[in-house]
Protein backbone atom coordinates (compact mmCIF):
# COMPACT_ATOMS: atom_id res chain seq x y z
CA UNK A 1 0.00 0.00 0.00
CA UNK A 2 2.82 2.40 0.82
CA UNK A 3 4.20 2.40 -2.72
CA UNK A 4 0.74 3.08 -4.18
CA UNK A 5 0.24 6.00 -1.76
CA UNK A 6 3.52 7.49 -2.88
CA UNK A 7 2.50 7.37 -6.54
CA UNK A 8 -0.75 9.31 -6.19
CA UNK A 9 -0.52 13.10 -6.48
CA UNK A 10 -2.50 15.08 -3.89
CA UNK A 11 -1.79 18.80 -4.20
CA UNK A 12 -3.50 20.92 -1.55
CA UNK A 13 -7.25 21.21 -2.33
CA UNK A 14 -7.06 18.38 -4.92
CA UNK A 15 -6.76 15.39 -2.62
CA UNK A 16 -9.73 13.41 -4.00
CA UNK A 17 -7.77 10.70 -5.81
CA UNK A 18 -5.67 10.02 -2.73
CA UNK A 19 -8.70 9.90 -0.46
CA UNK A 20 -10.62 7.59 -2.80
CA UNK A 21 -7.70 5.17 -2.72
CA UNK A 22 -7.41 5.41 1.07
CA UNK A 23 -11.13 4.73 1.42
CA UNK A 24 -10.67 1.36 -0.34
CA UNK A 25 -8.20 0.34 2.36
CA UNK A 26 -10.35 1.14 5.38
CA UNK A 27 -11.90 -1.55 7.57
CA UNK A 28 -14.77 0.51 8.97
CA UNK A 29 -17.43 3.01 7.93
CA UNK A 30 -16.24 6.27 6.49
CA UNK A 31 -17.60 9.52 5.10
CA UNK A 32 -16.44 12.89 3.84
CA UNK A 33 -17.12 15.98 5.89
CA UNK A 34 -18.11 19.45 4.65
CA UNK A 35 -14.68 20.46 3.47
CA UNK A 36 -13.54 17.09 2.15
CA UNK A 37 -11.71 15.39 5.04
CA UNK A 38 -12.13 11.59 4.95
CA UNK A 39 -13.32 10.40 8.36
CA UNK A 40 -13.24 6.72 9.28
CA UNK A 41 -15.29 6.04 12.39
CA UNK A 42 -15.19 3.04 14.71
CA UNK A 43 -18.16 3.57 17.01
CA UNK A 44 -17.72 2.98 20.70
CA UNK A 45 -19.18 4.18 23.98
CA UNK A 46 -16.11 5.62 25.61
CA UNK A 47 -14.19 8.85 25.15
CA UNK A 48 -13.71 10.23 21.65
CA UNK A 49 -10.23 9.62 20.29
CA UNK A 50 -9.14 11.22 17.06
CA UNK A 51 -6.06 10.32 15.04
CA UNK A 52 -5.21 12.84 12.34
CA UNK A 53 -2.82 13.15 9.41
CA UNK A 54 -2.88 15.61 6.49
CA UNK A 55 -2.63 13.89 3.11
CA UNK A 56 -1.93 16.87 0.86
CA UNK A 57 1.32 18.06 -0.68
CA UNK A 58 2.54 21.38 -2.07
CA UNK A 59 0.22 22.86 -4.69
CA UNK A 60 1.16 24.74 -7.83
CA UNK A 61 -1.67 26.86 -9.23
CA UNK A 62 -1.47 28.27 -12.75
CA UNK A 63 -1.79 32.06 -12.66
CA UNK A 64 -1.16 32.73 -16.32
CA UNK A 65 -0.20 30.76 -19.41
CA UNK A 66 1.32 32.03 -22.64
CA UNK A 67 2.02 29.20 -25.13
CA UNK A 68 4.45 26.95 -23.24
CA UNK A 69 5.37 29.49 -20.57
CA UNK A 70 3.40 29.19 -17.33
CA UNK A 71 3.44 31.49 -14.32
CA UNK A 72 2.29 29.84 -11.14
CA UNK A 73 1.69 30.37 -7.47
CA UNK A 74 3.29 27.84 -5.13
CA UNK A 75 1.70 26.90 -1.82
CA UNK A 76 3.86 24.90 0.56
CA UNK A 77 7.30 24.80 2.07
CA UNK A 78 9.30 22.60 -0.34
CA UNK A 79 11.86 24.33 -2.56
CA UNK A 80 11.37 24.51 -6.28
CA UNK A 81 14.68 24.80 -8.05
CA UNK A 82 15.46 25.54 -11.68
CA UNK A 83 15.26 22.28 -13.58
CA UNK A 84 12.79 20.55 -11.24
CA UNK A 85 9.93 18.75 -12.92
CA UNK A 86 6.36 19.82 -12.24
CA UNK A 87 3.23 17.88 -13.14
CA UNK A 88 -0.17 19.29 -14.03
CA UNK A 89 -2.32 16.19 -14.01
CA UNK A 90 0.37 14.26 -15.83
CA UNK A 91 1.41 17.09 -18.16
CA UNK A 92 5.03 17.85 -17.33
CA UNK A 93 6.87 21.13 -17.15
CA UNK A 94 10.37 22.22 -16.21
CA UNK A 95 10.71 24.88 -13.52
CA UNK A 96 12.54 28.06 -14.49
CA UNK A 97 12.39 29.42 -10.96
CA UNK A 98 10.02 29.52 -7.98
CA UNK A 99 7.25 31.16 -10.03
CA UNK A 100 7.46 30.02 -13.62
CA UNK A 101 7.99 26.95 -15.74
CA UNK A 102 8.01 25.78 -19.35
CA UNK A 103 5.69 23.02 -20.51
CA UNK A 104 7.35 20.18 -22.40
CA UNK A 105 4.63 20.57 -25.04
CA UNK A 106 1.72 22.94 -25.66
CA UNK A 107 -0.60 20.98 -23.43
CA UNK A 108 -4.09 22.17 -22.61
CA UNK A 109 -3.41 23.82 -19.28
CA UNK A 110 -5.61 26.68 -18.08
CA UNK A 111 -5.50 29.40 -15.45
CA UNK A 112 -6.41 28.00 -12.02
CA UNK A 113 -5.35 24.43 -12.95
CA UNK A 114 -3.46 22.86 -10.06
CA UNK A 115 -0.36 20.70 -10.20
CA UNK A 116 2.43 19.52 -7.98
CA UNK A 117 6.13 18.75 -7.94
CA UNK A 118 6.96 15.64 -9.94
CA UNK A 119 9.20 13.43 -7.84
CA UNK A 120 9.08 9.64 -8.28
CA UNK A 121 9.31 7.44 -5.24
CA UNK A 122 12.35 5.35 -4.37
CA UNK A 123 12.22 2.52 -1.85
CA UNK A 124 14.96 0.13 -0.88
CA UNK A 125 16.37 -1.64 2.19
CA UNK A 126 14.07 -0.09 4.75
CA UNK A 127 14.36 3.45 3.44
CA UNK A 128 11.80 5.40 1.45
CA UNK A 129 12.43 8.57 -0.54
CA UNK A 130 9.09 10.14 -1.45
CA UNK A 131 6.99 13.29 -1.38
CA UNK A 132 5.38 13.77 2.04
CA UNK A 133 7.07 10.58 3.24
CA UNK A 134 6.05 11.10 6.88
CA UNK A 135 2.41 11.53 5.97
CA UNK A 136 2.44 8.39 3.78
CA UNK A 137 3.83 6.29 6.63
CA UNK A 138 1.12 7.57 8.98
CA UNK A 139 -1.66 7.08 6.43
CA UNK A 140 -0.61 3.49 5.81
CA UNK A 141 -0.49 2.73 9.55
CA UNK A 142 -3.82 4.44 10.26
CA UNK A 143 -5.53 2.48 7.48
CA UNK A 144 -4.35 -0.80 9.01
CA UNK A 145 -5.40 0.38 12.47
CA UNK A 146 -9.02 0.70 11.32
CA UNK A 147 -9.29 -3.09 11.65
CA UNK A 148 -8.54 -2.95 15.38
CA UNK A 149 -11.24 -2.95 18.07
CA UNK A 150 -11.46 -0.48 20.90
CA UNK A 151 -13.71 0.54 23.77
CA UNK A 152 -13.33 4.15 22.72
CA UNK A 153 -15.27 6.06 20.07
CA UNK A 154 -12.47 6.34 17.50
CA UNK A 155 -12.07 8.63 14.50
CA UNK A 156 -9.30 8.26 11.94
CA UNK A 157 -9.17 11.49 9.93
CA UNK A 158 -7.31 11.81 6.64
CA UNK A 159 -7.19 15.56 6.31
CA UNK A 160 -7.21 17.97 3.40
CA UNK A 161 -5.72 21.44 2.92
CA UNK A 162 -3.02 20.96 5.52
CA UNK A 163 -0.67 23.18 3.51
CA UNK A 164 -3.24 25.96 3.68
CA UNK A 165 -2.87 26.80 7.35
CA UNK A 166 -4.09 23.39 8.53
CA UNK A 167 -7.67 24.07 7.45
CA UNK A 168 -8.63 20.38 7.42
CA UNK A 169 -7.45 19.81 10.99
CA UNK A 170 -9.31 22.85 12.32
CA UNK A 171 -12.49 21.83 10.51
CA UNK A 172 -12.29 18.20 11.66
CA UNK A 173 -11.74 19.15 15.31
CA UNK A 174 -14.62 21.62 15.05
CA UNK A 175 -16.94 18.85 13.78
CA UNK A 176 -15.83 15.88 15.88
CA UNK A 177 -14.87 17.67 19.13
CA UNK A 178 -12.57 14.87 20.33
CA UNK A 179 -11.62 14.28 23.96
CA UNK A 180 -8.10 13.23 22.89
CA UNK A 181 -6.34 14.19 19.71
CA UNK A 182 -3.23 12.60 18.22
CA UNK A 183 -1.69 14.40 15.25
CA UNK A 184 0.94 12.77 13.04
CA UNK A 185 3.28 15.07 11.14
CA UNK A 186 6.89 15.28 10.05
CA UNK A 187 9.79 16.52 12.09
CA UNK A 188 13.26 17.52 10.98
CA UNK A 189 14.76 16.23 14.23
CA UNK A 190 17.45 13.66 13.63
CA UNK A 191 16.17 10.50 15.21
CA UNK A 192 15.47 6.84 14.51
CA UNK A 193 12.39 6.92 16.73
CA UNK A 194 9.08 8.70 16.74
CA UNK A 195 9.12 11.97 18.68
CA UNK A 196 6.63 13.91 20.74
CA UNK A 197 6.50 17.66 20.08
CA UNK A 198 6.28 18.93 23.65
CA UNK A 199 6.82 22.53 22.69
CA UNK A 200 7.19 24.20 19.32
CA UNK A 201 6.38 27.57 17.79
CA UNK A 202 2.90 28.61 19.04
CA UNK A 203 2.12 25.18 20.48
CA UNK A 204 2.44 23.48 23.86
CA UNK A 205 1.08 19.96 23.98
CA UNK A 206 -0.91 18.46 26.82
CA UNK A 207 1.95 17.58 29.15
CA UNK A 208 0.33 14.58 30.84
CA UNK A 209 -0.77 12.97 27.59
CA UNK A 210 2.59 13.57 25.93
CA UNK A 211 4.58 12.31 28.92
CA UNK A 212 2.48 9.18 28.95
CA UNK A 213 3.36 8.56 25.29
CA UNK A 214 7.04 9.23 25.92
CA UNK A 215 7.15 6.74 28.79
CA UNK A 216 5.01 4.07 27.18
CA UNK A 217 6.63 4.02 23.73
CA UNK A 218 10.12 5.35 24.49
CA UNK A 219 9.62 8.33 22.25
CA UNK A 220 12.08 11.18 21.78
CA UNK A 221 11.17 14.68 22.88
CA UNK A 222 11.10 17.87 20.83
CA UNK A 223 11.37 21.19 22.60
CA UNK A 224 12.14 23.59 19.79
CA UNK A 225 10.75 27.06 19.36
CA UNK A 226 11.71 27.09 15.67
CA UNK A 227 9.85 23.97 14.59
CA UNK A 228 6.22 24.49 13.64
CA UNK A 229 3.32 22.23 14.45
CA UNK A 230 -0.23 21.97 13.19
CA UNK A 231 -1.18 21.40 16.82
CA UNK A 232 -1.18 25.17 17.11
CA UNK A 233 -4.59 25.30 15.37
CA UNK A 234 -6.21 22.38 17.19
CA UNK A 235 -8.70 23.46 19.82
CA UNK A 236 -8.71 20.33 21.94
CA UNK A 237 -7.31 20.26 25.47
CA UNK A 238 -5.73 16.83 25.30
CA UNK A 239 -3.59 17.08 22.18
CA UNK A 240 -0.36 15.32 21.43
CA UNK A 241 1.67 15.82 18.27
CA UNK A 242 3.78 12.88 17.16
CA UNK A 243 6.71 13.83 14.97
CA UNK A 244 7.84 11.34 12.32
CA UNK A 245 11.53 12.05 11.67
CA UNK A 246 12.51 12.59 8.04
CA UNK A 247 15.49 14.09 6.24
CA UNK A 248 15.44 16.76 3.51
CA UNK A 249 12.33 18.59 4.69
CA UNK A 250 13.12 21.53 2.43
CA UNK A 251 13.16 19.40 -0.72
CA UNK A 252 10.39 17.75 -2.72
CA UNK A 253 11.20 14.24 -1.49
CA UNK A 254 11.99 13.36 2.09
CA UNK A 255 13.89 10.30 3.28
CA UNK A 256 12.34 8.20 6.02
CA UNK A 257 12.87 4.86 7.68
CA UNK A 258 9.99 2.51 6.79
CA UNK A 259 10.29 0.80 10.20
CA UNK A 260 8.58 3.92 11.58
CA UNK A 261 5.33 2.70 10.04
CA UNK A 262 5.28 -0.20 12.50
CA UNK A 263 6.08 2.19 15.36
CA UNK A 264 3.13 4.39 14.39
CA UNK A 265 0.83 1.38 14.17
CA UNK A 266 1.96 0.09 17.57
CA UNK A 267 1.35 3.49 19.11
CA UNK A 268 -2.18 3.68 17.70
CA UNK A 269 -2.96 0.11 18.81
CA UNK A 270 -1.59 0.90 22.25
CA UNK A 271 -3.88 3.92 22.59
CA UNK A 272 -6.96 2.06 21.42
Amino acid at each position, binding site marked *: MLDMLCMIDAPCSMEQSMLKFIQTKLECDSEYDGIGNLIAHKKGDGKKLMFFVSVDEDAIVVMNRDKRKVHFSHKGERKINKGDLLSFGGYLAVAEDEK*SCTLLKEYEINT*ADTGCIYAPVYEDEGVILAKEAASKLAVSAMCEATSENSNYDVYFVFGVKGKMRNTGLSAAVSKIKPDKLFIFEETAKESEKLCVKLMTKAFNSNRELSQNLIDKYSLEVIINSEETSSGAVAVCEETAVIGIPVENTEFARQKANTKLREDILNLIKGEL
Partner: protein
Amino acid sequence: MLFKLCDENAASGFEGQVSEIIIKEAKKYADKLVKDSMGNIYAFKKGTDSQKTIMVSAHMDEVGFIISSITDDGYLKFRVVGGINENVLVGKRVTVGKNKIKGVTGIKAVHLMTKDERNEKPSCEKMYIDIGVSSREEALKLVNIGDYAHFDTKTENFGKNFIKAKALDDRCGCFIILELLKKRYKNDIYFCFVVQEEIGVRGATALSAKLNPDEAITVEGTTCLDLPFVEEYDKSTSAGDGAVLAIADSSTYYDRDLTQSLFECAEKAQLKKVGVGGTDGRAFQLNNIKAAAVAVPARYIHSPVSVVNNEDIENTIKLLENYLEVEKDA
Protein backbone atom coordinates in the same frame (compact mmCIF):
# COMPACT_ATOMS: atom_id res chain seq x y z
CA MET B 1 -28.58 51.77 -2.89
CA LEU B 2 -24.89 51.04 -3.60
CA PHE B 3 -24.11 54.75 -3.37
CA LYS B 4 -25.97 55.01 -0.04
CA LEU B 5 -24.10 52.01 1.36
CA CYS B 6 -20.67 53.26 0.30
CA ASP B 7 -21.22 56.81 1.54
CA GLU B 8 -22.12 55.58 5.02
CA ASN B 9 -19.39 54.74 7.55
CA ALA B 10 -18.73 51.35 9.15
CA ALA B 11 -15.20 50.57 10.28
CA SER B 12 -14.87 47.15 11.93
CA GLY B 13 -16.72 47.32 15.23
CA PHE B 14 -18.79 50.33 14.16
CA GLU B 15 -21.14 48.77 11.62
CA GLY B 16 -24.37 50.15 13.12
CA GLN B 17 -25.08 52.89 10.61
CA VAL B 18 -24.72 50.60 7.59
CA SER B 19 -26.68 47.83 9.28
CA GLU B 20 -29.61 50.24 9.74
CA ILE B 21 -29.72 50.86 6.00
CA ILE B 22 -29.58 47.13 5.32
CA ILE B 23 -32.26 46.23 7.86
CA LYS B 24 -34.62 48.87 6.44
CA GLU B 25 -34.21 47.42 2.94
CA ALA B 26 -34.04 43.73 3.83
CA LYS B 27 -37.19 43.64 5.92
CA LYS B 28 -39.26 44.36 2.79
CA TYR B 29 -38.27 41.00 1.31
CA ALA B 30 -37.23 38.61 4.11
CA ASP B 31 -39.39 35.87 5.61
CA LYS B 32 -37.42 36.34 8.79
CA LEU B 33 -34.84 38.97 9.74
CA VAL B 34 -32.48 38.66 12.72
CA LYS B 35 -29.69 40.79 14.15
CA ASP B 36 -27.47 38.86 16.54
CA SER B 37 -25.56 40.09 19.58
CA MET B 38 -22.40 40.71 17.55
CA GLY B 39 -24.28 42.83 15.02
CA ASN B 40 -24.44 40.25 12.22
CA ILE B 41 -27.69 40.38 10.25
CA TYR B 42 -29.32 37.49 8.48
CA ALA B 43 -32.46 37.42 6.34
CA PHE B 44 -33.99 34.01 5.78
CA LYS B 45 -36.10 33.07 2.74
CA LYS B 46 -37.78 29.70 2.53
CA GLY B 47 -37.21 27.80 -0.70
CA THR B 48 -39.96 26.49 -2.95
CA ASP B 49 -38.50 22.99 -3.10
CA SER B 50 -35.52 23.00 -0.81
CA GLN B 51 -32.81 20.32 -1.08
CA LYS B 52 -30.16 22.18 0.88
CA THR B 53 -29.49 25.32 2.91
CA ILE B 54 -27.23 27.93 1.40
CA MET B 55 -25.65 30.92 3.08
CA VAL B 56 -24.65 33.91 0.94
CA SER B 57 -22.69 36.44 2.87
CA ALA B 58 -21.01 39.83 2.58
CA HIS B 59 -19.31 41.89 5.25
CA MET B 60 -20.57 45.33 6.24
CA ASP B 61 -17.36 46.63 7.74
CA GLU B 62 -14.60 48.61 6.04
CA VAL B 63 -11.06 49.57 6.94
CA GLY B 64 -10.73 52.81 8.88
CA PHE B 65 -9.15 54.38 11.93
CA ILE B 66 -9.69 54.66 15.66
CA ILE B 67 -8.74 57.74 17.68
CA SER B 68 -6.17 56.71 20.26
CA SER B 69 -5.32 60.05 21.89
CA ILE B 70 -5.66 63.81 21.57
CA THR B 71 -2.68 66.15 21.82
CA ASP B 72 -2.70 69.33 23.88
CA ASP B 73 -2.94 71.28 20.60
CA GLY B 74 -6.08 69.45 19.56
CA TYR B 75 -4.60 67.03 17.01
CA LEU B 76 -5.98 63.49 16.94
CA LYS B 77 -3.60 60.55 17.07
CA PHE B 78 -4.97 57.38 15.53
CA ARG B 79 -4.43 53.72 14.74
CA VAL B 80 -5.61 51.86 11.64
CA VAL B 81 -8.48 49.38 11.83
CA GLY B 82 -7.95 46.60 9.31
CA GLY B 83 -5.19 46.38 6.70
CA ILE B 84 -4.30 49.76 5.26
CA ASN B 85 -1.03 50.57 3.52
CA GLU B 86 0.23 53.58 5.41
CA ASN B 87 1.67 54.99 2.17
CA VAL B 88 -1.86 55.99 1.16
CA LEU B 89 -2.71 57.86 4.36
CA VAL B 90 -0.93 61.18 4.03
CA GLY B 91 -3.03 64.24 3.23
CA LYS B 92 -6.38 62.51 3.00
CA ARG B 93 -9.85 63.81 3.88
CA VAL B 94 -11.53 61.94 6.71
CA THR B 95 -14.59 62.23 8.92
CA VAL B 96 -14.48 61.47 12.63
CA GLY B 97 -17.14 60.00 14.88
CA LYS B 98 -20.90 59.69 14.60
CA ASN B 99 -21.25 63.37 13.77
CA LYS B 100 -18.77 63.06 10.89
CA ILE B 101 -16.49 65.87 11.95
CA LYS B 102 -14.33 66.78 8.98
CA GLY B 103 -10.58 66.33 9.24
CA VAL B 104 -7.39 65.88 7.26
CA THR B 105 -4.60 63.37 7.89
CA GLY B 106 -1.37 65.23 8.40
CA ILE B 107 2.33 64.67 8.61
CA LYS B 108 5.35 67.00 8.58
CA ALA B 109 5.60 68.77 5.21
CA VAL B 110 8.33 67.39 2.96
CA HIS B 111 10.14 70.78 2.99
CA LEU B 112 10.65 70.41 6.72
CA MET B 113 11.83 66.82 6.71
CA THR B 114 15.39 65.67 7.17
CA LYS B 115 16.90 63.45 4.49
CA ASP B 116 16.38 60.39 6.73
CA GLU B 117 12.76 61.31 7.38
CA ARG B 118 12.09 61.62 3.65
CA ASN B 119 13.41 58.13 3.08
CA GLU B 120 11.33 56.62 5.88
CA LYS B 121 8.12 54.84 5.15
CA PRO B 122 5.17 56.89 6.44
CA SER B 123 3.84 55.56 9.71
CA CYS B 124 0.54 56.38 11.39
CA GLU B 125 2.51 56.83 14.61
CA LYS B 126 3.93 60.02 13.11
CA MET B 127 0.62 61.15 11.63
CA TYR B 128 -2.36 62.92 13.10
CA ILE B 129 -5.82 64.06 12.10
CA ASP B 130 -6.29 67.82 11.97
CA ILE B 131 -9.89 68.83 12.72
CA GLY B 132 -9.12 72.54 12.71
CA VAL B 133 -9.12 73.24 16.46
CA SER B 134 -6.33 74.60 18.60
CA SER B 135 -6.70 72.83 21.94
CA ARG B 136 -7.52 69.48 23.46
CA GLU B 137 -10.55 71.02 25.16
CA GLU B 138 -11.97 72.25 21.87
CA ALA B 139 -11.34 68.84 20.29
CA LEU B 140 -13.14 67.03 23.10
CA LYS B 141 -16.27 69.07 22.42
CA LEU B 142 -16.43 67.47 18.97
CA VAL B 143 -14.84 63.99 19.26
CA ASN B 144 -13.75 61.40 21.84
CA ILE B 145 -10.93 58.95 22.24
CA GLY B 146 -12.21 55.67 20.81
CA ASP B 147 -14.22 57.36 18.05
CA TYR B 148 -13.84 55.87 14.60
CA ALA B 149 -12.65 57.83 11.59
CA HIS B 150 -13.28 57.02 7.95
CA PHE B 151 -12.09 58.15 4.56
CA ASP B 152 -14.29 61.01 3.32
CA THR B 153 -15.08 59.98 -0.23
CA LYS B 154 -18.24 60.64 -2.21
CA THR B 155 -19.46 57.83 -4.43
CA GLU B 156 -19.63 58.77 -8.12
CA ASN B 157 -20.06 57.28 -11.56
CA PHE B 158 -17.16 58.03 -13.85
CA GLY B 159 -15.56 56.97 -17.08
CA LYS B 160 -17.12 54.17 -19.09
CA ASN B 161 -19.50 52.49 -16.65
CA PHE B 162 -17.17 52.68 -13.62
CA ILE B 163 -17.98 53.63 -10.06
CA LYS B 164 -15.50 55.18 -7.64
CA ALA B 165 -16.18 55.06 -3.91
CA LYS B 166 -14.70 54.12 -0.58
CA ALA B 167 -15.50 50.72 0.94
CA LEU B 168 -16.45 48.91 -2.26
CA ASP B 169 -14.84 46.07 -0.34
CA ASP B 170 -17.40 44.96 0.64
CA ARG B 171 -20.41 47.28 0.16
CA CYS B 172 -20.69 45.97 -3.38
CA GLY B 173 -21.12 42.51 -1.83
CA CYS B 174 -23.82 43.87 0.49
CA PHE B 175 -25.55 45.53 -2.46
CA ILE B 176 -25.46 42.32 -4.50
CA ILE B 177 -27.01 40.34 -1.66
CA LEU B 178 -29.77 42.94 -1.18
CA GLU B 179 -30.56 42.61 -4.89
CA LEU B 180 -30.65 38.80 -4.60
CA LEU B 181 -32.98 39.08 -1.62
CA LYS B 182 -35.71 40.57 -3.80
CA LYS B 183 -36.36 37.21 -5.47
CA ARG B 184 -37.39 33.74 -4.27
CA TYR B 185 -35.31 30.63 -4.89
CA LYS B 186 -35.57 26.89 -4.95
CA ASN B 187 -33.52 26.29 -1.77
CA ASP B 188 -33.66 27.74 1.74
CA ILE B 189 -31.26 30.66 1.78
CA TYR B 190 -29.71 32.80 4.48
CA PHE B 191 -28.75 36.24 3.12
CA CYS B 192 -26.13 37.41 5.59
CA PHE B 193 -24.43 40.69 6.36
CA VAL B 194 -21.58 40.11 8.78
CA VAL B 195 -19.32 42.26 10.93
CA GLN B 196 -15.60 42.49 11.67
CA GLU B 197 -14.27 40.72 8.58
CA GLU B 198 -11.38 43.16 8.21
CA ILE B 199 -9.97 42.34 11.62
CA GLY B 200 -10.14 38.56 11.47
CA VAL B 201 -13.37 37.23 9.89
CA ARG B 202 -15.02 37.29 13.28
CA GLY B 203 -18.67 37.87 12.41
CA ALA B 204 -18.67 35.11 9.79
CA THR B 205 -17.02 32.68 12.20
CA ALA B 206 -19.77 33.14 14.76
CA LEU B 207 -22.68 33.31 12.32
CA SER B 208 -21.72 30.31 10.20
CA ALA B 209 -21.30 28.20 13.34
CA LYS B 210 -24.81 29.22 14.38
CA LEU B 211 -26.54 28.74 10.99
CA ASN B 212 -24.51 25.66 9.92
CA PRO B 213 -25.59 25.71 6.25
CA ASP B 214 -24.79 23.02 3.69
CA GLU B 215 -22.89 25.56 1.59
CA ALA B 216 -21.62 29.07 2.10
CA ILE B 217 -20.73 31.62 -0.56
CA THR B 218 -18.95 34.81 0.36
CA VAL B 219 -19.55 37.75 -1.98
CA GLU B 220 -16.62 40.14 -1.96
CA GLY B 221 -14.72 42.97 -3.60
CA THR B 222 -11.35 41.54 -4.52
CA THR B 223 -7.96 42.79 -5.68
CA CYS B 224 -7.58 43.99 -9.24
CA LEU B 225 -4.36 45.21 -10.81
CA ASP B 226 -5.18 45.46 -14.52
CA LEU B 227 -2.89 48.43 -15.16
CA PRO B 228 -0.78 48.94 -18.27
CA PHE B 229 2.64 48.59 -16.62
CA VAL B 230 1.70 45.32 -14.88
CA GLU B 231 2.70 42.02 -16.44
CA GLU B 232 -0.22 39.82 -17.50
CA TYR B 233 0.59 37.15 -14.92
CA ASP B 234 0.64 39.70 -12.09
CA LYS B 235 -2.73 41.24 -12.90
CA SER B 236 -4.70 39.27 -10.32
CA THR B 237 -8.14 39.98 -11.82
CA SER B 238 -9.35 42.41 -14.50
CA ALA B 239 -12.18 44.93 -14.29
CA GLY B 240 -14.77 44.31 -16.98
CA ASP B 241 -14.00 40.61 -17.35
CA GLY B 242 -16.93 39.56 -15.18
CA ALA B 243 -17.33 38.04 -11.75
CA VAL B 244 -14.31 36.46 -10.13
CA LEU B 245 -14.54 32.86 -8.93
CA ALA B 246 -11.64 32.44 -6.56
CA ILE B 247 -9.74 29.16 -6.53
CA ALA B 248 -7.66 30.31 -3.59
CA ASP B 249 -6.29 33.30 -1.78
CA SER B 250 -3.62 33.57 0.88
CA SER B 251 -5.73 31.95 3.60
CA THR B 252 -8.06 29.51 1.83
CA TYR B 253 -8.44 27.02 -0.97
CA TYR B 254 -12.11 27.14 -1.87
CA ASP B 255 -14.20 24.06 -2.63
CA ARG B 256 -13.41 23.10 -6.22
CA ASP B 257 -16.73 21.45 -7.03
CA LEU B 258 -18.75 24.35 -5.67
CA THR B 259 -16.53 26.87 -7.46
CA GLN B 260 -16.85 24.97 -10.72
CA SER B 261 -20.66 24.83 -10.36
CA LEU B 262 -20.72 28.59 -9.87
CA PHE B 263 -18.42 29.13 -12.87
CA GLU B 264 -20.81 27.16 -15.07
CA CYS B 265 -23.64 29.51 -14.07
CA ALA B 266 -21.80 32.57 -15.28
CA GLU B 267 -22.24 34.36 -18.58
CA LYS B 268 -19.00 36.20 -17.99
CA ALA B 269 -16.59 35.20 -15.25
CA GLN B 270 -12.92 34.74 -14.49
CA LEU B 271 -11.57 31.76 -12.57
CA LYS B 272 -8.57 33.01 -10.62
CA LYS B 273 -6.16 32.37 -7.87
CA VAL B 274 -6.24 35.78 -6.27
CA GLY B 275 -3.25 37.13 -4.45
CA VAL B 276 -2.90 38.33 -0.92
CA GLY B 277 -5.67 38.77 1.60
CA GLY B 278 -8.42 36.47 2.77
CA THR B 279 -12.19 36.36 3.02
CA ASP B 280 -14.91 35.01 5.27
CA GLY B 281 -14.51 31.79 3.27
CA ARG B 282 -11.85 30.69 5.73
CA ALA B 283 -14.27 31.16 8.63
CA PHE B 284 -16.81 28.92 6.90
CA GLN B 285 -14.25 26.20 6.29
CA LEU B 286 -13.04 26.23 9.88
CA ASN B 287 -16.67 25.51 10.82
CA ASN B 288 -16.54 22.56 8.40
CA ILE B 289 -18.77 24.18 5.78
CA LYS B 290 -18.18 23.86 2.03
CA ALA B 291 -17.24 27.35 0.86
CA ALA B 292 -16.72 29.38 -2.29
CA ALA B 293 -15.96 33.01 -3.01
CA VAL B 294 -17.54 35.10 -5.73
CA ALA B 295 -16.10 38.57 -6.10
CA VAL B 296 -16.24 41.80 -8.04
CA PRO B 297 -12.81 43.01 -9.21
CA ALA B 298 -12.07 46.26 -7.37
CA ARG B 299 -9.04 48.41 -8.08
CA TYR B 300 -7.26 50.09 -5.16
CA ILE B 301 -9.13 48.41 -2.32
CA HIS B 302 -8.23 49.38 1.25
CA SER B 303 -7.47 52.92 0.15
CA PRO B 304 -9.49 56.18 0.15
CA VAL B 305 -11.04 55.44 -3.25
CA SER B 306 -11.62 52.15 -5.01
CA VAL B 307 -13.07 51.48 -8.46
CA VAL B 308 -15.39 48.84 -9.89
CA ASN B 309 -17.05 48.26 -13.22
CA ASN B 310 -20.85 48.34 -13.03
CA GLU B 311 -21.12 45.49 -15.53
CA ASP B 312 -19.10 43.22 -13.24
CA ILE B 313 -21.61 43.85 -10.47
CA GLU B 314 -24.50 42.97 -12.80
CA ASN B 315 -22.70 39.83 -13.98
CA THR B 316 -22.14 38.75 -10.39
CA ILE B 317 -25.82 39.18 -9.59
CA LYS B 318 -26.83 37.14 -12.66
CA LEU B 319 -24.32 34.40 -11.80
CA LEU B 320 -25.67 34.04 -8.28
CA GLU B 321 -29.30 34.15 -9.39
CA ASN B 322 -28.55 31.32 -11.81
CA TYR B 323 -26.74 29.26 -9.19
CA LEU B 324 -29.33 29.83 -6.46
CA GLU B 325 -32.11 29.01 -8.98
CA VAL B 326 -34.57 31.88 -9.02
CA GLU B 327 -38.19 30.66 -8.87
CA LYS B 328 -40.27 33.83 -9.06
CA ASP B 329 -40.11 37.46 -7.98
CA ALA B 330 -40.79 38.07 -4.29
